[in-house]
């Protein structure tokens, strides 16, 4: 509850930090925010190329190459946000040590601003995805706008994770390196570049891997244009609650010591 009050009081600071963080990434480049669209396009393009021509997909829910391409791209949309949030979030308390040491600000807003900045990048990626989809499918209906209801949960999920890892990383610096390794494993153990049907059954358990539900929600809304399954919504909400609880509990036990260690 204390955290909620702090969030409310520092909303302008959170917003300013997030916007400045996002804008400063593209400041001074000629293409500017276009890079926020080009980067996900290239990333998704590479994986589509590898997994469709080099390692052709078996018949399954993916279908033809363009369909498979869209399938992979849609799955990567939430991954971009989670990856950036966790990667940059894990070291944010050390990167922003000058803020930690000199300003009386609630520390949990530092991982949060990275998450929001990553979410804004994610929105650009969604726009690119819809443009690519329009190019191949020639039809679009406003169903995809429902994604905005998934974003708050996604933000809370990433925030909980980033809060947990960034705080722990202050005390044990190995954690950020460990996190990088775990991210790679997580990526290939998730139904992002693989069709769900091609993964072994134990990797598709929605209670084990939150990305099973989250990618399904993204694909349902953006690709298949249908209401996501209730199971996916429930499981991702549960994952969010657990991660958020773990993040806040750990944060509250340790934040007073953080400034002594950065």
């Amino acid at each position, binding site marked *: 509850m204390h955290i909620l009050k702090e969030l409310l009081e520092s909303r302008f600071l959170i917003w300013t930090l997030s916007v400045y963080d996002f804008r400063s990434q593209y400041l001074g480049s000629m293409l500017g925010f276009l890079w926020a669209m080009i980067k996900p396009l290239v990333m998704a393009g590479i994986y589509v190329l590898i997994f469709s021509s080099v390692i052709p997909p078996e018949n399954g829910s993916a279908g033809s190459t363009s369909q498979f391409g869209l399938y992979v791209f849609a799955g990567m949309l939430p991954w971009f946000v989670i990856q950036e949030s966790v990667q940059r979030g894990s070291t944010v308390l050390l990167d922003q040590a000058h803020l930690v040491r*000199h*300003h009386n*600000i609630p520390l949990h807003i530092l991982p949060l601003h990275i998450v929001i900045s990553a979410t804004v990048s994610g929105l650009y990626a969604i726009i690119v995805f819809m443009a690519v989809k329009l190019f191949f499918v020639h039809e679009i209906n406003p169903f995809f706008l429902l994604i905005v209801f998934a974003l708050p949960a996604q933000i809370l999920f990433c925030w909980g994770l980033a809060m947990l890892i960034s705080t722990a990383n202050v*005390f044990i610096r190995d954690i950020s390196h460990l996190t990088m390794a775990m991210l790679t494993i997580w990526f290939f153990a998730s139904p992002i570049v693989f069709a769900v049907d091609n993964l072994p059954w134990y990797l598709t358990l929605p209670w084990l891997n939150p990305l099973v539900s989250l990618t399904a929600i993204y694909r349902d809304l953006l690709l298949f244009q249908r209401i996501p399954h209730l199971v996916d919504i429930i499981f991702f909400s549960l994952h969010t609650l657990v991660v958020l609880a773990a993040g806040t509990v750990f944060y509250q036990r*340790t934040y*007073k010591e953080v400034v002594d260690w950065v």
Partner: protein
Amino acid sequence: MREIVDATKVQVVVKNISKSYRAYNSRASVLSSFFRRSAGDASEEKRSTALDDITFDVTEGECLGLIGRNGSGKSTLLRILAGIVSPSHGAVEMRGRISAVLDIQSGLHPRMTGRQNIFLKGALYGLRKREIKKRLDQIISFSGLGDYIDHPLNTYSTGMVIRLGFAIAMHMDFDILLMDEILSVGDIVFQRQCLGKVKSFMSQGKTIIIATHNLGDVSAICQRVIFLKSGRVQHDGKTETVLKDYWDICEREQNKIPRALHPFNPENVYGTDTKEIAIRRVDLLDGDGLQQDTFNTGEAVQVRIRFQCSRKVANPLFRVQFFRNDGLWVHGTNTSRASIDLGELEGDGEIILHYEKMNLLEGDYYITVGIWPDEYRSSFTDIAYDCHQWSYVIHMKSRREDGGGIAFSPFSWHLGGK
């Protein structure tokens, strides 16, 4: 004690606060200790103390200065008052809105413009958007940046960044202002402007706590000063009294030779010494012939040199020199200057240089002892029988009224008419 002070006017209450840090190498055990804390067995690990049992009150409208050497705990104390660092023990109560200006440059975004940075830094100080908008014009005009306000910060000079940071910091809303060593930044004109701003806060009845090394600032604006030494309150009182005490201690420390710099194995730096006579031992004695290493200014000091001749030596020259810790040659003498003919020396012996009054002032001084063939060869060819360069240390103590510097001469003051 609390009843004596009018409770409504006390704005800052600091009660027995201490701060200690875990030793760096105990890092690995930190995480587990968070979960053990409730059991209460955290006391065994190694800790270093930054603040030790600090207690004081500040009343509304008071301007308090914090002084002390580097590492005395000023910044830690300010950061605890600002609520950034939590004390290990004790409690702090701040009654009113705090503005903590601990580092005016931190948080500024180098790639954003001055104007954007005003919003960012304002938000970091806890302001809302409309509060910042209200102050925007004042801040820009105080900073004197003019059109540069819309240029990115990385095109600014260091001074411009500091001016912007200070301008933002000086336009926040607060009852209590905490400042860490930031008044003496920028050029002289800007420094005056800043000092003026702080003085206007004082006339508005704001409470100010300021940590600084600039004693001029302290005496210009503070009525009260706390002198911190190694994390403890050494002196808390009126500005003049505490500054005098602080100055006194600083003066004493400045002429000290750190233990680590005492060369305890004397060595002849002149490689060409001939060793016909070797120095066996050098001792410092007081007037009664007792061995000492610390003397009061004006006391008798004897330098006793024990030597050993491996063969007969005709009238060698004994020399003793005193040097300050920075290498300044303070005093020196030798037997030739004093026109002493020692005749022919052989075997073991000792010679004593006797000072009736040692008039060196407070500080540590190196002593060089040498035995040379004669004065000319010692100054031109650097050939010594034996020489212990900067090998002994004498500690001098003096009273404040003896004066400052290195040399004492008896004196008195006389006020005359025109």
